[in-house]
């Protein structure tokens, strides 16, 4: 790697840090109407350290993709601070962002839509080098392809000649071209079949071992995230409601929303009896979120206090695990081991 990136690494090895970041999208309204905005991300602190994979989960519209795009500086925050590699880059624009963009790359959901159908794989992989003013050698391109399990013969082919899983590999190879420290993957496997999805998830794990990559993995599929995440952040209506080491959050969710979310995921275990918390109602609109706790309209534990002020992330059971709730659930000591352990 070049010196630029090693110089900017901070002692704490924080690749990415968001402080109180907000993103409001203005809605096109007529002048005489009260101006409205979608509070897509509404005050988030978020840190990614070197070598870790942070999973970002939540329902549709909770702001996951917006947070991902804020992290890669594809979007300008409405408020708050974005630091990359220890440097405050909130105000940076254009050329100045180039070295930053190199450290953080993004992988998108739909491999079909994110690859130009008229460009060969070789051309697609050359583009990110060019953006950095480098002319890659063929050997470099082949090296990239082999990192994602493709080979030289694929260089001259076009996206439509590949399967969905292969196209996602190409998308990942393109992101890897500039040797980033952090890959922000927005739903990288949700368009893929189960068997192919497993290939891509394994690939991500391998690349992490080989290249020491870090990931932010955005997904609505909690099982996918559990497979690869070291830490987990759960989003609801533009805020992070729970965050902590993945193993802990999954085995002992503290926030009522996380608990409901996890209990709703079906498990491949015929006849398994699960205490399912079925949430009623819909997610409120992010234009006019509820006062106080954003989850209170659907929460099975809500009380009067929940409607007054928004709860902040506070440690539960000590340590790194935090939840934004006045009445967090007590830790679940594995009193009720899942049935499925026995098939293992």
């Amino acid at each position, binding site marked *: 790697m070049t010196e630029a990136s090693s110089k900017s690494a901070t002692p704490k090895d924080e690749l990415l840090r968001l402080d109180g970041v907000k993103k409001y999208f203005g809605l096109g309204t007529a002048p005489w109407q009260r101006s409205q905005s979608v509070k897509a991300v509404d005050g988030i602190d978020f840190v990614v350290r070197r070598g870790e994979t942070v999973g970002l989960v939540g329902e549709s519209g909770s702001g996951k993709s917006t947070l991902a795009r804020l992290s890669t500086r594809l979007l300008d925050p409405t408020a708050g601070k974005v630091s990359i590699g220890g440097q405050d880059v909130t105000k940076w624009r254009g050329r100045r962002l180039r070295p930053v963009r190199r450290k953080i790359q993004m992988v998108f959901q739909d491999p079909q839509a994110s690859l130009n159908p008229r460009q060969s794989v070789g051309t697609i992989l050359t583009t990110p080098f060019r953006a950095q003013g480098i002319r890659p050698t063929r050997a470099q391109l082949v090296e990239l392809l082999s990192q994602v399990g493709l080979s030289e013969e694929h260089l001259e082919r076009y996206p439509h000649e590949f399967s969905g899983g292969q196209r996602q590999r190409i998308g990942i190879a393109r992101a890897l071209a500039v040797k980033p420290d952090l890959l922000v993957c927005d739903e990288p496997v949700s368009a893929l079949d189960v068997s192919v999805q497993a290939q891509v998830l*394994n690939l991500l794990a391998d690349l992490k071992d080989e290249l020491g990559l870090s990931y932010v993995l955005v997904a609505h599929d909690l099982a996918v995230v*559990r497979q690869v995440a070291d830490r987990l952040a759960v989003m609801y209506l533009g805020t992070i409601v729970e965050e902590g080491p993945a193993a802990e959050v999954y085995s002992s969710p503290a926030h009522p929303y996380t608990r409901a979310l996890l209990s709703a*995921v079906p498990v491949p275990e*015929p006849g398994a009896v699960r205490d399912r918390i*079925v*949430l009623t109602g819909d*997610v409120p609109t992010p234009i006019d979120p509820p006062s106080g706790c954003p989850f209170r309209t659907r929460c099975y534990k809500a009380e009067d206090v929940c409607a007054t002020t928004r709860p902040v992330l506070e440690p539960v059971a000590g340590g790194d695990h935090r939840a934004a709730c006045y009445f967090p659930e007590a830790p679940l000591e594995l009193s009720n081991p899942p049935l499925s352990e026995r098939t293992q």
Partner: protein
Amino acid sequence: MADRPVLEVHDLHVTFRTEGGLVPAVAGIDFAVAPGKTLAIVGESGSGKSVSSAAVMGLLPSNADVKGEVLLDGRELVGLPNDELRKIRGNDIALVFQDALSALNPYYSVGWQVAEAYRLHHDVSKKEALERAVRMLDLVGIPAAKARAKDYPHEFSGGMRQRVVIAMALVNDPKVLIADEPTTALDVTVQAQIMRLLEDVQTEFGTALVLISHDLGVVAEVADDVLVMYAGRAAEHGSVKDLFYRAAHPYSLGLLGAMPRVDVPPRHRLTTIPGSPPSPGSVKTGCPFQPRCAYTERVGERCITERPELTPRPGEGNHEAACHLGRRPEVAP
């Protein structure tokens, strides 16, 4: 065994005539569902799940050739004139699509659309039909159904729209409900609501459900029987326990191993199936799964030369698998 199946499909073939030649999208599948029971059809994208369900409904485009038998209460549907089929569609067999927003007509209110489904099969006044529609919307859990019946599809959330589609499918008390990925577009919390709704409906009305899904978790939860499709054919068929505890086909095993789980700490790696599924008709002889199969070496030549037929396997239901490997393959390392 308790109940006679209400829907039986025997040796169903669907071939599309296209400019690129014949596409055998479905090449001989059998299944049956009894009242109140759920059959799940799983398989990779392009394996022919949706085409099979459209064939049952007689809803395929005109460039499709359908062969085989589709028996509804013993009555043959294949080859029935369109006029006769029309009376069965939406009345005896109803369909729920994956994407509720596009499945609903944006120009009519949801009440009108549900009422239309009723009026097409009942000689009632518009008012009576609308009353029935409101009752249905209420039944599927639309709050303030009477008022909301006047609203248009875009005014509902994704989960609510899927409820509307389900109300529309159930308005004529169909014997069979075919749900093609009914929750794929929905969040898990909403998926849980919809699956519970479908279960309630089944217990109340004894509807037979054919559930097309790629989510093995959902399948494990609601299915009684499972059909695993691969490249337009049945790879394996059996009770849900047969599939999850006694899977006999390497592809089924692969699917189970490839699925990450939310309820257990992650294993180091997921088992994967290498490669990707073949396009329909590209495998001419032998086993369609052969290029991706980890067990083909144990069997040898036969996998390439001879097409495996469904053969009985140990299990509780009619457990069958189409694989030359005689005994159950051990779980992959």
